[in-house]
């Protein structure tokens, strides 16, 4: 059986950054397992720009951003295999993978970094009634067909979901010659970046209908049309607001779900809010030596933060292999989000083990204007930061200092909440 110190599941932006960080930390024995025919993950099909502003102070397209990392991986001669699917990971950290050349094979890992990314929610999960014709695509699948293979999925398009993927595809399809008639969003606010509303919808005169959803699908063999309806504050369609649109294509951009089949099967405990693993300050899951980063941990908006998070995971995995599991005496401070903060990553912090500065990432559950982020150590507020706007579609972060936490051994709980004043 092959043996590696660190096995990384996924060669997308998370896996690549983790591998590089692990090597920078001195680990030599690293293997990346990637199921696609090339490294780069989802970035390969994200041909639009907007990546890398934080990491490289440049605006790059997805493939260019990926290339920065794949070039480094090549330079470092970090091992990777392509066209390889991981079938199973055992709790003892044996990774079973499969490809044409080697068939089924096992790898014993000392540390594993989960970097499998996420998948898209489908129409079935939305229970839109009607026929089941051809012409309904998740936005990512359509993106793959258009950008990687050069095919048009349709001529007249309706997009459900104003997350970034839906917005980007609105522009993409328009530039390739399709007519995008409307983008409908069930929430009263858009899930994507404001810049994408401007440069993907406003630039092309594509209307955005907030608080609307698709309530019916017509067309038995190929899509012929859909019905939009306004929804109330519980998301239920309002009778009398129905509007029919003829279209041959419906793109769904209705949510991303971290792909944790492998994680769950090996006993990694999930956070039901994120659908990703619960991790400690080292981004380690409940299974010793198994780390998680990127979209598989929680869905990100900016790849720059994926790379940052993955680098931390890579370094920590490398340290784990070098030094073994560090279980110093000390408490596990519980982190939690309340009052508008839906979740935090990580969920616990052990101050002895953390770096000098720990980034805590979180998301709010609603749009908040002119509010504050309140951070509490036990019951004492230590941070009161004003934020002009916070939205569910934009991940937030705060930084915690190790020094401060060590200075106060009585802190057993850190709470992050949204406050009015």
């Amino acid at each position, binding site marked *: 059986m092959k043996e590696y110190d660190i096995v990384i599941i996924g060669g997308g932006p998370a896996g690549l950054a983790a591998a590089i960080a692990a090597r920078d930390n001195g680990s030599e024995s690293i293997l990346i397992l990637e199921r696609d025919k090339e490294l780069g993950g989802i970035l390969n099909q994200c041909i639009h720009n907007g990546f890398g502003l934080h990491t490289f102070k440049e605006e790059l397209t997805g493939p260019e951003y990926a290339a920065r990392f794949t070039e480094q991986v090549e330079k470092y001669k970090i091992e990777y295999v392509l066209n390889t699917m991981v079938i199973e990971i055992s709790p003892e950290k044996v990774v079973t993978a*499969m490809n044409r050349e*080697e068939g*089924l094979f096992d790898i014993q890992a000392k540390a594993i970094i989960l970097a499998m990314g996420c998948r898209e929610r489908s129409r079935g999960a939305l229970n839109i009634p009607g*026929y089941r014709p051809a012409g309904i695509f998740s936005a990512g699948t359509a993106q793959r067909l258009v950008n*990687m*293979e050069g095919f*048009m999925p349709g001529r007249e398009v309706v997009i459900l979901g104003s997350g970034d993927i839906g917005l980007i595809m609105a522009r993409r399809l328009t530039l390739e010659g399709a007519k995008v008639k409307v983008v409908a969003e069930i929430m009263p606010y858009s899930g994507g970046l404001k810049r994408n509303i401007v440069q993907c919808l406003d630039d092309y005169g594509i209307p955005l209908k907030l608080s609307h959803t698709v309530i019916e699908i*017509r067309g038995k063999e190929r899509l012929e049309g859909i019905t939009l309806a306004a929804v109330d504050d519980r998301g239920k369609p309002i009778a009398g607001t129905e509007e029919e649109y003829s279209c041959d294509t419906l793109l769904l951009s209705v949510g991303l779900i971290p792909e944790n089949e492998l994680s769950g099967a090996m006993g990694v405990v999930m956070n039901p809010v994120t659908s990703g693993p619960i991790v400690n300050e080292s981004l380690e899951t409940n299974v010793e030596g198994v780390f998680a980063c990127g979209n598989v941990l929680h869905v990100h908006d900016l790849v720059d933060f994926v790379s940052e998070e993955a680098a931390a995971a890579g370094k920590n995995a490398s340290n784990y292999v070098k030094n073994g599991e560090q279980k110093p005496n000390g408490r596990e401070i519980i982190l939690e989000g309340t009052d508008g903060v839906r979740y935090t990553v990580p969920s616990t912090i052990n101050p002895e083990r953390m770096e000098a500065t720990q980034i805590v990432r979180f998301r709010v559950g609603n749009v908040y204007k002119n509010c504050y982020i309140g951070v509490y150590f036990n019951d004492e507020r230590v941070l009161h930061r004003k934020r002009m706007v916070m939205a569910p579609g934009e991940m937030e972060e705060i930084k915690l200092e190790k020094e401060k936490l060590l200075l106060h051994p009585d802190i057993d709980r850190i709470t992050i909440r949204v406050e009015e004043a």
Partner: protein
Amino acid sequence: MYDVIIIGAGVSGSAVARELSRYKVNACVLEKEEDVCCGTSKANSAIIHAGYDAAEGSLMAKLNVEGNQIMPELSKELDIPFEQCGSLVVCLDEASLPNLQALYDRGVKNGVEDLEIITDKARIREMEPNLTDEVVAVLSAPTAGIVCPFHLNIALAENAYTNGIDFKFDTEVESIEPIEGGWKLETSQGVYETRYVVNAAGVYADRFHNMVSESKIHITPRRGDYFLLDKNAGKHVNRTIFALPSKYGKGVLVTPTVHGNLIIGPTAVDIEDKEGTATTREGLDELSKASLNVKNLPMRQVITSFAGLRAHEDHHEFIIRELEDAPGFVDCAGIESPGLTSSPAIGKMVAEILREKLDLDVNPDFNGTRKGNIDLDTLSKEEKAALIEKEPAYGNIICRCEMVTEGELLDAIHRPLGARTLDGIKRRTRAGAGRCQAGFCTPKTMEILHRELGIPMTEITKSGGDSQLLVGYNKDRI
């Protein structure tokens, strides 16, 4: 001139074809869709009923019980998944106990074995921890089971084809006229002549029957909406859980599927449109009735919904006979529930009618054993490794939700009556049937169909007809 033409390649028509292929006969199945198993046969509860529900002394009851008894052996012969998981009919109040008893009595009279009424709540809870706390008693039928209707239909058809029966697809029968010695069928693909016709046309069977007979029948499409839940929910119940039946049918049931999913459904909505397989908001909402019998249903695990049309004849009975006023025309009509269960028995019954009437000789080359698609899940690690070494395509995963490999897709495409569309691939291999609902595998599956069959990418369809996925190439309209 054919000896026999069977209209419809659903599970009835395919079962007839398979049983008929035991004899030396010149026969053909005409199917209006692009593949077998495209009508009711692909959208039902996938249940092998025990047989207590059908009216005593009815043909439905007889063929139900017979089909149920044939299924375990047949599933081995045809190499299809089948599980005799048993079923429970749930009684929620004392006042309805006589109805439960009536089912039991009817079942016994129909010849169903091992039926039992259980009132011991502790035992019921042990059998099904997620059954409602309101349960007062259950009728347990251990001979009931679950099957894959796609695999059953496809396997029957494949076996028939391998044993010499022709299949013609995209061939819609438009009219039937009596001619000297038989019948002339005008179809969308030309004229066919045959001595005997078997009318296994599902919801359209009344259309063809009424073309040849004075005594009319009437088939109402009765729509059933269903939810399909993720495999994570597959163990929520261990058996098929039925509500006590009413005049509209067997009620909303909850059942595991043979692939490990959970199905909730069906509704029972009579409609006019014989193509009306669209689900409706009302239909899907009605499925919440299932929680009357099963608690804590994980509805967030729904991965898709669909609807099928039962061919409900006015008299609610199978019509399987040669017509008196149309000799040479054999009805196989009104095949609503328990149609799937009865299909092997239906096949035998019709084949026997034909054997006798046409005086058919036995086909000495008949081979009733059919080897199905290799399911990698059933192989050990060593067997998997050996397979991939022999055929590397089995090492390339196409559908990651259901772990379906390229090898399985190639098999599905190249075997007799192979897949030509995405749905054809899905029914044979399960690629696209998983939780991401083909989001990941669609581009790959299309590429393989294109490569193996030479179909241009823009002509690959979801389910034949006008269901192309792609309309053209980038910038082709600018």
